[in-house]
């Protein structure tokens, strides 16, 4: 299939909620009280509890990952996530509302080290706050083994 470079993959919006921050912090064994205690966050200069570093993973609730894989022309059983990178402009605070805009920034095919062709698709997501400022940028590299 042709390159998907530049394609808008999906766009979802969600609230950064106190309860979900606590739930995600517990699920990742994060213990900093700034994730659960407003006073602890206030001592550090923030108005409400802080989300953990990988909190935006919760956008999985809003996304249809299988539909995304299909729309990229990838075969799900042969796809693995190679890496994920987050760059932070500021921490996420309970009460934030984010809009996540995900697009294809690279789509390449190359020979794998162990033989066979690999298709490597890089997705970039800008997480925009209420003011439209990008507060967090995420890059995901999807690898499809045995690409035609």
């Amino acid at each position: 299939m042709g390159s998907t470079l530049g394609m808008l993959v999906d766009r979802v919006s969600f609230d950064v909620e106190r309860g979900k921050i606590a739930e995600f912090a517990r699920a990742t064994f994060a213990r900093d009280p700034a994730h659960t205690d407003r006073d602890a966050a206030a001592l550090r200069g923030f108005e409400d509890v802080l989300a953990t570093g990988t909190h935006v993973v919760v956008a999985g609730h809003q996304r249809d990952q299988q539909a995304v894989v299909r729309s990229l022309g990838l075969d799900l059983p042969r796809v693995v996530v190679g890496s994920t990178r987050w760059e932070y402009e500021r921490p996420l605070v309970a009460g934030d509302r984010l809009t996540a805009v995900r697009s294809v920034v690279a789509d390449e095919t190359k020979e794998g080290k162990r033989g066979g062709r690999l298709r490597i698709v890089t997705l970039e997501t800008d997480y925009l706050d209420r003011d439209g400022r990008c507060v967090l940028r995420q890059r995901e590299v999807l690898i499809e083994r045995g690409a035609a």
Partner: protein
Amino acid sequence: MSLPADSPPAGAVPGHAVPSHMVPAQRPEPRTVGPLTQTDIVRFAGAGGDFNPLHHDPEFAAAAGFGRPIAMGQLSAGLLSGWLTDWCGVENLRVLEVRFASPVAVGDSITLSCETLTVSEGPTGRDVIELELVARSGATTVVTARATVWAPAATHAMPVAARADRSGATIPERDPRDKPADI
């Protein structure tokens, strides 16, 4: 916009001279999490929204070539991130990049450790630390990561109790209802 920020985030305490004995270590102490139970994986599924049956259905996992359900890569990434920011404060995290090397299965214990690559003075005089992190299950590397953080201020205002328990290598608090998975 330009990322990452060239100055500490709002709320961060700008760097200032502190007695050297008060300067915190330039990296977190190792932490071990686990053995991971099926409950831990299901809890992460509920938190993050990844309901791929590979992570909770033993028959599905077996058909995919795994002896046991495997954890999401993002669970391991979250363990690394949480451990790192328990030390430096999430407001000091500038970049985190994780690479997934091997699957993690129910029953695995994950050990998190890191090396400091560089410490350099940032534009505001506050140190910027580059770290190389690794999550291992036994001798197997499951995730590697690179992180860039603002040095945690000596005045990093975490309550004393939270600081004190950070010396422990394992995470004691678990829901008593958690039991090892019957797999």
